C-alpha cells in the first residue's frame, strides 16, 4: 500500500516528462496514488488516460516517501489493457521481439522495405508514427555467430533484442572487451526480456519470455556465471520485474546475480586497474543517462569509468527523458510528446557543443542521434576507443582492441 505514503507534494509531477507536454495526461500523482483510492477491486477500469504514461519511472525515483508511483500506474495500465480491446499498435509492439527477428532474417531487404513510403503510410494508418526511423536490421545477429569466447571469470551476457538484431557490432564489442578483461563470455540462448510486451499490456507474453529466460539464466547462475546486461531497460526488467510483476521462477536469484556491464567493468577495474588499460581520448561527449538506469538506483558506473580517461570531457545529463521510451515513441498517438521531449533533451546536448552523445540504451541513442545529428555511441565504445589509444591505430577502435589482445599473454 505504498500509495498511503503520498502527501501530494507534487515532486513526482515536477519530474514527469509527459505531463509537461501532453495535456491529456493528468500526471503521475493523479494517475498513481490519487486514482488508486478509487480503483476498487472487481470494477472495470475506465482510466484510459493511463496509456500516456511512458513508464520512464522518473516519478518513482523522485518520490521522497517511497511511493511506487510508476508501479501503481503500470498495474493500472495492465488492468485496463486486460479489460479492453487494445489498439493494433499495442499488439504490434508487444511482439517487438518477433518483428525484430523477422527484420533480421530478411535484412538488408527489410531495411529497404522499412523506408518505403507505401509501407510507412500503411503503418501510419494502423497507428505507427512516421517520425522515428525504424532501426536497421542486421542479418548476422547475436543469435548467429560465436556463442562462447575467452577464458576466466564466467559471464553470461544478456544482450537484448536491440543489440542482437540492430547493433550486433556493439554486442560483439562488449563481448570482446569482457574477454580481454579475463572473462569467459557466453551468449546464452535468449528471448526478449519481456519489457515491450509488458509495456504494451501483454502480461502473458511478457511472463512467457521471462520464464524462458529465467530457466536459461538460472542454469548459468547455478554453474557459477554472473549475468551481465548492457541495455539498461533489459536490466531494469531483469532486476525489478522478473522478481516482481512477471513472477519469473528464480527471479530473486537472477536479480542477485545480474550486473550492469559498466558496473561489472568498474568492479573488475577496482580489483585490478591493469585489467582495463585506459589511455588518452581527446573527445567531448554528452553522456545521456537513460531513465531506466536512473531507476535502477545503482548510480552511473560508466561515468565513473569515463572519469578515468585522460583528455575526455564528459557531461553527465540526467535531467531529461529522450522521449522514445522503448516502443512508446513509435506510436502515432504519442508522436507529439515524443517529438517535443526529443527536442528538449537534444537542445541541452546541442548547447554543449560535443562531438558525440553517449547512452546505454538503444532507444536513447536512436532518438537523440536523430535529433542532434551527432554520433550516438554506447559507453563501451568510448571505453574501447580509450583502450585503443594505447595501441598504434587510433582510428578503428575495433582493430585497436584486437591488436591489444594479441599483446596480452
Amino acid at each position: 500500500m505504498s500509495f498511503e505514503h503520498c502527501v501530494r507534494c507534487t515532486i513526482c509531477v515536477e519530474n514527469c516528462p509527459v505531463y509537461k507536454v501532453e495535456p491529456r495526461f493528468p500526471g503521475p500523482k493523479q494517475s498513481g496514488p490519487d486514482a488508486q483510492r478509487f480503483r476498487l477491486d472487481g470494477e472495470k477500469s475506465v482510466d484510459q488516460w493511463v496509456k500516456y504514461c511512458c513508464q520512464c519511472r522518473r516519478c518513482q525515483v523522485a518520490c521522497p516517501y517511497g511511493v511506487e508511483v510508476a508501479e501503481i500506474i503500470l498495474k493500472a495500465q495492465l488492468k485496463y489493457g486486460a479489460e479492453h480491446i487494445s489498439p493494433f499498435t499495442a499488439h504490434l509492439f508487444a511482439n517487438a521481439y518477433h518483428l525484430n527477428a523477422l527484420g533480421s532474417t530478411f535484412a538488408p531487404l527489410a531495411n529497404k522495405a522499412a523506408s518505403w513510403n507505401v509501407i510507412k503510410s500503411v503503418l501510419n494508418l494502423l497507428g505507427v508514427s512516421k517520425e522515428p526511423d525504424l532501426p536497421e536490421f542486421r542479418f548476422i545477429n547475436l543469435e548467429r555467430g560465436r556463442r562462447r569466447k575467452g577464458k576466466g571469470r564466467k559471464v553470461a551476457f544478456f544482450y537484448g533484442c536491440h543489440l542482437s538484431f540492430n547493433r550486433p557490432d556493439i554486442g560483439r564489442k562488449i563481448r570482446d572487451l569482457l574477454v580481454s578483461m579475463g572473462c569467459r563470455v557466453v551468449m546464452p540462448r535468449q528471448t526478449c526480456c519481456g519489457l515491450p510486451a509488458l509495456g504494451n499490456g501483454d502480461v502473458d507474453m511478457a511472463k512467457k519470455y521471462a520464464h524462458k529466460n529465467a530457466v536459461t539464466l538460472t542454469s548459468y547462475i547455478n554453474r557459477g556465471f554472473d549475468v551481465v546486461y548492457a541495455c539498461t531497460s533489459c536490466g531494469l526488467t531483469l532486476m525489478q520485474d522478473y522478481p516482481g510483476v512477471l513472477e519469473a521462477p528464480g527471479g530473486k536469484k537472477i536479480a542477485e546475480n545480474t550486473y550492469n556491464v559498466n558496473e561489472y567493468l568498474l568492479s573488475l577495474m577496482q580489483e585490478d586497474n591493469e585489467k582495463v588499460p585506459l589511455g588518452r581520448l581527446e573527445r567531448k561527449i554528452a553522456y545521456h543517462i537513460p531513465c531506466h538506469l536512473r531507476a535502477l538506483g545503482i548510480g552511473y558506473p560508466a561515468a565513473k569509468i569515463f572519469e578515468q580517461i585522460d583528455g575526455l570531457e564528459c557531461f553527465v545529463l540526467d535531467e531529461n527523458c529522450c522521449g522514445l521510451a522503448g516502443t512508446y515513441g513509435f506510436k502515432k498517438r504519442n508522436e507529439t510528446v515524443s517529438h517535443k521531449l526529443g527536442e528538449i533533451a537534444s537542445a541541452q546536448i546541442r548547447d554543449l557543443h560535443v562531438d558525440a552523445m553517449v547512452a546505454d540504451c538503444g532507444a536513447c541513442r536512436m532518438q537523440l542521434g536523430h535529433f542532434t545529428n551527432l554520433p550516438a555511441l554506447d559507453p563501451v565504445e568510448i571505453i574501447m576507443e580509450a583502450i585503443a589509444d594505447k595501441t598504434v591505430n587510433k582510428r578503428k577502435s575495433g582493430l585497436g582492441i584486437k591488436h591489444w589482445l594479441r599483446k596480452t599473454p
Partner: protein
Amino acid sequence: MSSHLHDVVVIGGGMSGLMASVYLAGKGFKTALISRGDPVCCLSTGCIDVLSSTGSNPLDGFGGLPEGHPYHLVGKKGVEEAYKLFKEVMAEGSIPYVGTIRKNREILTPIGTFKTTCLVPATMAASLGCRDEYVHVISFKGIKDFYPSYITSKLKNTGFSLYDAGASSTLAIAARFEEKGFAEDFAVWLEGLELPPGKVALPAVLGLNNPVAVMEAISLRIGREVFEIPTLPPSIPGFRLFRSLKAALQHRGGDVFWGMPISSVERHGNIVEAVTLATSGRATRVQGRVFILATGSFVSGGLFATRDSVHETVFGIPVHIPGPRKDWFRNDFFNAGHPIEEAGIEVDASFRPIHGNSTNLFVCGSILAHSEIMKYHCGHGLALATGLKAAKMCERMLT
C-alpha cells in the same frame, strides 16, 4: 554486492546535503550523494530565508535566538561564508542569485502579501520595491493555483491581463516558454498592451533551464522590469534551485545515487564504514571515510513520528522530542512555532550528534534539533550554513 569507495558520503539531497557535497567535491574529495528522492526544496519559493523573522539585517537577529538554535554553532561568519559559496555556485549556472546577507528583502506572494527573505533568484529581483510602483500582473488561461485578483486588490497601483499559453499547468507553461518562438510571441503581445511605466509580474513559469535569459529578453522588448512570483507546488523556482545545485555537484565530479532508501549501515566500532542501498536484487554498497546525515525533518523523511515517539530514519540516532504527542501542536494552526518543530538531532560544535556513538558521522540541515524553521523562517539559510560548516568539519577530519 556492488561496492563504491568514496571519501565522503552525504545522505540526503536537500539544501544542506547539496551544499556540503558541492563544497567537498569542489575541494577534490571523492563525494557521493545519496538521496531517496528529490528534496523538498523543489517545492519551495526558491529563495533563501536566512532569518526572516527579524528586521532588516537577518544577522542582527542571531542574538535573539534561543540558546540551542543551530545558528549559534555556525555563527555569523559561517553564514556569510555559506552565502558567498552559494552565490558563486549559482552564478555558474543559468540562474544567479541576488541579495546581500546583511539585508532582508521582500518578494511578492501569490496572495498579494509580501514575504521577507534574503537571497532571491534573479528572476525575482525586481520584486523589490514593487509596493510603490505600478505592477501589471499577468496570468495564464486555465491556471489553477494563481488568482491575480488577490494581488490586484491588495497593491495600490496595479493592472491585470490574461494570456492564453495553450497550457494550464505551471510546468506545461514553463515547457512552452522553452519552445522556439513562444517567449518572443509572448513578449510581442505584452508590448502590444502598451503598459504604463512600472513592472510586470507573472507566476514563475519562465522555463526551467534559462529563465533569466527569457526574462531579460522580454524585459528588453517591453522596456519594463519583469519578475516572477513563486507559486504553490509544483514550484518551478524550487525545482530550478535543486537542479542547479545538483548539476554543480556533478560538474565537480560528485556521484549521485538516486531513488533508493538505505537498507543497512555497516559499522566497525564507532566508525561508520558503509551504507547499503536497497537496490533490487543486489544491494549497492557505498563506502566512505566520513558520512554526513542531511535527511531533513518529517516532511523530508529524515524524522518519522509514531503515535508516541519520533525516530531518525537512517542511523537511529536518538532524537530530541519535545514532550508527548498531545503537546506537539498548539491549537492555532497559524501559530508557527509548534513545539514539534524543536524535534531533531542535537549536535556538538563539531556537528557530530551528542547522543550518537560514531566519530565519523556528521549531521546538518533541518534535521537538527531546535531549528524551529517555521517560527524563525530560516530554512534554506540554516541548511546552507550548517551544510557548509559540517562539510568543513569533515574536511578537517579527512586531511
